[in-house]
């Protein structure tokens, strides 16, 4: 049977492989992302989930919300386990999509080595990073994916230091640097773009990386009903850029008409509530530089104030480091 190509959400099959009745929080970005990815990939798929929210809300013995074959072992080995599963299935002559779904901690931080190994070997698997920008499953600790300024339990609002002082790691650039066949960033607020990218990942062979921004209600201190709106604002403010790298060719798949000031994104989330004007400006400047990097154009003032002469953004104020 030749599966119909899925171009928009109208083509999306209604068969669920992540079924209702799982234990995710209302408004969980991860659940929305996984459910829709599963609808695109369909039956012949095997899923590996490392330590993350996803394992806890989808597979708690004796129940399981996955209708796919499901495997879990540890936190840092998604790239390696899916490599092994794929090798075995290939030997058994089975055409099966093998997918690993890890969180940002399991991808940006502890899982980076296994991810890099699998990407370098160009394993024929799909690696999905469900990025909710902190270690949500262990109680909201900062990760390499946490944005600048955000509150987490390990970047608390102290008297001396408020929130995370480092910017989000550019995992997409790191993964793309492995020259893999396909890499894309996804948003749950752009469903047509979302399903098209998953469909494309399914149709390509070799290592594929999908990076989904997944709003987290308890971690982001936001309203359950606002998850999709927040995800949309992430794109409109430039906190999240929708693009893909298809066999080395980078292409933006959605460009906001104008850059919305980041403040509008921040004010919907309790994790940024404490941020000073100065810190918001720092974050805005970081966004504007990324905007310029992606869209090859200057951003007007306001929202941005970029000094022409500045070479690099120095955030630790250590005179030894420049400018």
């Amino acid at each position, binding site marked *: 049977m030749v599966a119909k190509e899925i171009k928009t959400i109208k083509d999306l099959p209604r068969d669920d492989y992540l079924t209702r009745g799982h234990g995710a929080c209302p408004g969980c970005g991860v659940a929305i992302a996984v459910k829709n990815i599963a609808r695109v990939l369909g039956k012949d798929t095997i899923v590996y989930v490392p330590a993350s929210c996803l394992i806890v809300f989808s*597979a708690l013995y004796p129940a399981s919300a996955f209708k796919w074959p499901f495997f879990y072992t540890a936190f840092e080995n998604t790239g390696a386990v899916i490599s092994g599963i794929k*090798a075995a299935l290939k030997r058994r002559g089975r055409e099966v999509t093998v997918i690993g779904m890890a969180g940002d901690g399991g991808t940006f931080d502890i899982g980076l080595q296994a991810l890099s190994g699998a990407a370098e070997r160009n394993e024929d698997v799909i690696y999905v990073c469900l990025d909710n920008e902190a270690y949500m499953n262990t109680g909201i600790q900062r990760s390499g994916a946490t944005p600048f300024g955000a509150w987490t339990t390990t970047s608390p609002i102290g008297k001396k230091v408020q929130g995370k002082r480092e910017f989000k790691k550019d995992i997409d650039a790191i993964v793309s640097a492995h020259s893999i066949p396909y890499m894309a960033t996804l948003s749950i607020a752009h469903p047509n773009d979302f399903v098209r990218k998953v469909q494309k990942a399914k149709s390509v062979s070799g290592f594929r990386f999908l990076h989904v921004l997944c709003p987290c209600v308890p971690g982001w201190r936001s309203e359950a009903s606002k998850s999709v709106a927040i995800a949309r604002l992430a794109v409109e403010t430039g906190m999240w850029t929708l693009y893909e790298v298809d066999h080395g060719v980078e292409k933006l798949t959605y460009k906001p008409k104008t850059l919305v000031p980041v403040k509008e994104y921040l004010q919907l989330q309790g994790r940024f509530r404490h941020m000073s004007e100065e810190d918001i400006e720092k974050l805005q400047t970081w966004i504007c530089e990324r905007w310029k990097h992606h869209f090859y154009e200057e951003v007007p003032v306001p929202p941005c104030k970029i000094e022409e002469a500045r070479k690099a953004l120095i955030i630790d104020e250590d005179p030894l480091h420049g400018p």
Partner: protein
Amino acid sequence: MKVISADHAVAHGARLARVEVVPAFPITPQTLIVELIAEFINDGELDADFLPVESEHSAMSAAIGACAGGARAFTATSSQGLALMHEMLYAAPQNRLPVVMVNVNRSLGAASGIWVEYNDSMPERESGWLQVYIEDNQEALDMVIQAYRVAEDREVMLPMMVCLDGFVLSHTVERVDFPDQHLVDSFLPKFKPLYLLDPDEPVTMNPITPPEYAMEMRFQLHRAVDGSKEVIEKVDREYGALTGRTYGGLVDTYQMEDAEIALITLGTVTSTARVVVDHLRSEGKKVGLIKLRFMRPFPSDELESIAENLKALGVFDRSVSFNGFGPVFTETRNALYHLGTPLTNHIAGLGGRDVTFKEVREMFTVIEEHAKGHRVKECHWHGLRGDS
């Protein structure tokens, strides 16, 4: 028949066992194994997938993934590499995935070295893996083949670690006989997984398990390790009928029929101790040797029936639990406690130090003294420079 190292014997064993997926990462003194397997695959002598992974943690992860996907998986490691795998080792037994791994024993940590010591594999006896210790190159080859038969037996379905002495075996050549491929094929059928990741029959493997269920799963694993004893004995007998070579199953004995005192050994020291036993026998001493092959399952009952009438027994250890005894001694004392047999621990060969005839003789001297009822230290370190 070929003259090869134990590492190469292992690689030939894996080839004859028709392993299908081999995730591998290099570490001395294991490297010769995966190098030769890579050559077999690239030369078309072995139909398998070689996964050159980026760490031992990933090697074990990929082996577990491959086994869950229904393939016969093999890997090899040593020392620090085994330590890095530690976390992943626990996933294989509890998921009943019969991965076979060769660990070339090597010392670990500070006072770093690349020479034999069992302090890498001994701590892993709590992981649920079966563990066999090898005496020579022929046994290395034969045990890789036997390991798959035991591990994949429906009554067992557990991973197995084949442990061999770094350099003493891994890089030393001996004559090794190769069984015919068709003989191995008749002994070791194609792997039939018990549970499998297959979209036609989806299963959830290793969900999060709450306290209401987890303890029973541990108990099942405990019983499976215990139950593997019979299978190990049976497989060894069957292998012997096919090839003419058996290893005694869980334990092998030498000159034990009328022995009054004996020494428990494992690994290559057994060969040294055999010669010492011969010398002592020629002097009229009723000494014997117990070659302990398996640490898991630990052959408590078998040791009990062998040691029943001994006047004293010594236990060799090539690793140590600091401030305590060697692990083999601890396990042996546990098993034989109710017999009341006088026991002594003999720690030697740490960090790859040679264990010579002289030291093994010293061990027997202590055991003999003990048998006469003289007071001796419970734990002796042999071959130390300076006082022991």
